[in-house]
């Protein structure tokens, strides 16, 4: 209701205020609001800071202008071509650099900006340093996006701004927003529950670049003259970042709020202080960003959120919905997960030395052994987080060789981490939604909210681990034991056949340990297969059908917990000779 009313006022504004200085300022607000919203998709939600967005802006401006002035193509088509080119360029840059630490991506985009500027400054076809005039058209103004008064431009810029905010809102409300924020918080944890993080980052980057290019086209049509100094300058790249940061990254309205504040302030200081005004407002922005980095990384929207914030009071102690006690019977003979000859060296140290392991459907297999035995490395190698030097892993007869972690989840093997990896700023429900099955999901499908059955599954797992009262509480505010239970629920949410648990009870207080054990047992009765690394032998006794004992990268013993306990080698490894 309020947004609709606000939009109506904004549409009517040019007929109420005819002041052309004001309209010009508003057009810039809309354009920069579009740019900052576009940047926010990749920089805010996905946390990949781009300092080169002027490249996409310039590409949009140049593409439509060159097509119009040299080939008579209308800017509607030229803009679309520019958007496609910008998206393609962003993929080419993002693909290799998304693997690197974040500041490498930031500096790679900065370099891209300089490369574009130098190229266009020296490229005669696009006017080099002299730039290009947009040829004036006096007929069919709408198709040529060219008017002699401000209001039509105002409406066009407003429309573009609405498009950018709309895309952001769709992302924010759909699964995509949750996925991107998860990637921002802990990319490995997102991959561990089956999310193809590279693909989602690329989607966000491409859409961001395309929107930015559209703004470039409109800007060219508005000022009717472009050169490398006004559309390919680092100043635009940096200003866009400043707007998004001050307004509030990772929020729908933050970039727009930031654009209104910054552009209006700049325009008015410039008009009142004249030439002297240049720079003063920017100094203020620099100071503001430093202060925000120190005190409120979420920007203005973070301040708003903090003021509004109510303390979450979860309903504790609600009844648990245990999975049905299905009579699954003893484990079957079917070998579900088979690892053979797994070997992994780090420098001169052999972490895994020919480890073989077999897990049957419906089994709980324990993996025990002293520190440094290679247990977690074994999990890493099975789940694709590390590549073994030798050895094979098969699930249901299918080889997992060289598969990335998210693909391995799709094949039915999921793991938890010894040091908890959840998404602390996402709510319990959102954490579970990140872990929903991604096998047949495309980024476009992820624009919709999760299907009802997925939400129901998430609710069911919340009940199973006793977190239903914490549905909308940020996971970072849960106790450690609850966070462990959440990570268990997330692993189950993926629907994987085999769940690898790395020390599910470490650091958990005894009462919660009983809960975790009961939960795993009952799930297993329902047919779920587990492999558990655990140091607490009581837990192993209570859970494991079979145990592998590892020391120094080898399996030294295998059998029931009783058998392994009596093995003299095991005694020696723990107790010494």
């Amino acid at each position, binding site marked *: 209701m309020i947004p609709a009313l606000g939009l109506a006022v904004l549409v009517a504004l040019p007929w109420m205020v005819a002041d052309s200085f004001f309209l010009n300022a508003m057009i810039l607000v809309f354009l920069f609001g579009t740019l900052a919203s576009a940047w926010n998709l990749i920089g805010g939600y996905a946390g990949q800071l781009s300092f080169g967005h002027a490249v996409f802006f310039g590409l949009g401006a140049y593409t439509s202008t060159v097509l119009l002035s040299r080939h008579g193509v209308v800017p509607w088509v030229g803009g679309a071509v520019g958007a496609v080119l910008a998206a393609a360029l962003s993929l080419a840059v993002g693909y290799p650099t998304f693997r690197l630490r974040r500041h490498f991506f930031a500096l790679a985009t900065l370099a891209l900006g300089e490369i574009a500027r130098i190229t266009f400054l020296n490229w005669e076809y696009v006017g080099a340093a002299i730039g290009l005039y947009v040829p004036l058209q006096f007929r069919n103004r709408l198709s040529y996006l060219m008017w002699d008064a401000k209001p039509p431009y105002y409406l066009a810029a407003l429309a573009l701004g609405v498009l950018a905010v709309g895309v952001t809102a769709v992302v924010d409300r759909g699964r995509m927003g949750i996925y991107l924020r998860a990637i921002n918080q802990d990319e490995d944890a997102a991959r561990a529950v089956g999310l193809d993080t590279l693909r989602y980052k690329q989607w966000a980057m491409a859409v961001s670049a395309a929107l930015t290019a559209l703004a470039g086209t409109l800007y060219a049509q508005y000022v009717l003259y472009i050169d490398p100094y006004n559309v390919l300058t680092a100043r635009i790249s940096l200003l866009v970042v400043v707007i998004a940061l001050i307004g509030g990254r990772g929020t729908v309205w933050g970039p727009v709020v930031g654009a209104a504040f910054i552009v209006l302030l700049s325009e008015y200081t410039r008009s009142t202080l004249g030439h002297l005004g240049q720079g003063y407002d920017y100094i203020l922005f620099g100071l503001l960003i430093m202060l925000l980095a120190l005190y409120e990384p979420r920007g203005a929207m973070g301040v708003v959120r903090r003021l509004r914030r109510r303390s979450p009071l979860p309903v504790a102690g609600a009844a648990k919905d245990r999975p049905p006690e299905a009579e699954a019977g003893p484990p079957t003979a079917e070998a579900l997960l088979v690892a053979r000859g797994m070997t992994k060296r780090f420098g001169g*140290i052999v972490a895994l030395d020919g480890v073989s392991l077999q897990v049957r459907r419906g089994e709980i297999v324990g993996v025990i052994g*002293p*520190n*440094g035995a290679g247990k977690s490395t074994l999990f890493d190698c099975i789940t694709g987080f590390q590549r073994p030097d030798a050895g094979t892993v098969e699930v249901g007869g299918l080889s997992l060789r060289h598969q990335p972690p998210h693909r391995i989840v799709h094949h039915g093997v999921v793991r938890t981490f010894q040091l908890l990896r959840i998404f602390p700023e996402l709510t319990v429900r959102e954490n579970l939604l990140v872990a929903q099955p991604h096998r047949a999901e495309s980024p476009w499908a992820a624009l919709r909210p999760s299907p009802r059955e997925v939400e129901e599954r998430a609710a069911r797992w919340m009940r199973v681990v006793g977190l239903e009262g914490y549905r909308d509480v940020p996971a970072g505010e*849960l*106790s*450690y034991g609850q*966070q462990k239970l959440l990570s268990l629920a997330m692993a189950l949410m993926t629907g994987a056949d085999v769940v690898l648990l790395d*020390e599910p009870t*470490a*650091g958990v207080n*005894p009462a919660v340990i009983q809960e975790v054990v009961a939960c795993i047992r009952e799930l297993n009765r329902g047919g779920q297969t587990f492999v558990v690394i655990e*140091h*607490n*032998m*009581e837990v*192993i*006794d209570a859970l494991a059908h079979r145990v592998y004992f590892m020391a120094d990268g080898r399996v030294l013993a295998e059998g029931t*917990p009783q058998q392994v*306990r009596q093995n003299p080698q*095991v*005694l020696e490894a*723990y*107790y*010494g*000779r």
Partner: protein
Amino acid sequence: MAGEGGTLRLEDVHSGYGPLEVVRGVSLVVGGGEVVAIIGPNGAGKSTLLRTIFGFVPPRRGRIWLDGGDLTGLRPVEVLRRGVAYVMQGYNVLPNLTVDDNLQLGAYIRRDPHVRADIQRVYELFPALWARRRQKARTLSGGERRMLELARVLLQRPRVLLLDEPTLGLAPRVIDQVYDVIAQIHRQGVAVLLVEQNARTALRHAHRAYVLEAGRIRFEGRGQELLDHPDVRRAYLGGERSTNPSATSRSTSSGDRSAGSP
């Protein structure tokens, strides 16, 4: 060249990381001239306890005393200056500095004129290091690195030495050498608190041991009696719980047994 032994005392110390409480109320004493081991299964909080004593992890509750002085909440640099040295689990050498530079940094906190002579004496104690003094520390073998770390600790002249898994990943022959050096350090009057997962090894070389389980001290005792205790076995290997709580042994005496080293 080591300083006089001190007495380290912990009173109801709690600590952890974020929502996770790892050490849940530990009280213990390491007297001057004692070698005391903390044993227990993985994840019991042994390393976190040492990190808390040294100031890497701030205690949430409780107090830590060195003789009369309060160490609670001090930064690592200050804890070291008061006389508590710490050798962490894994590698403690500075890989891209030479062996000699590593030793010189061992005396970083010292301002006295005897540093040069002390380094010379350390080289006499560890001839293998003298032969490699100009090499980068990363070129040393695992055993040599550990020797360099212990030699470096000697130059810090601690009153209390904290050692976290000093023999982890070392060959049996080197393990004996490491305990020889620890015995030498102990003979100079330094109190040693060491963490070992390998219970038998630890108890062979320590006067006393505490068994840590789930962040709390479950038992305290000496040598074989602790090893044979069914609850200690259970903590490591599982099985039936002992029903005889009186079997817990208590010993506060110190120095009445040699450190078991030659």
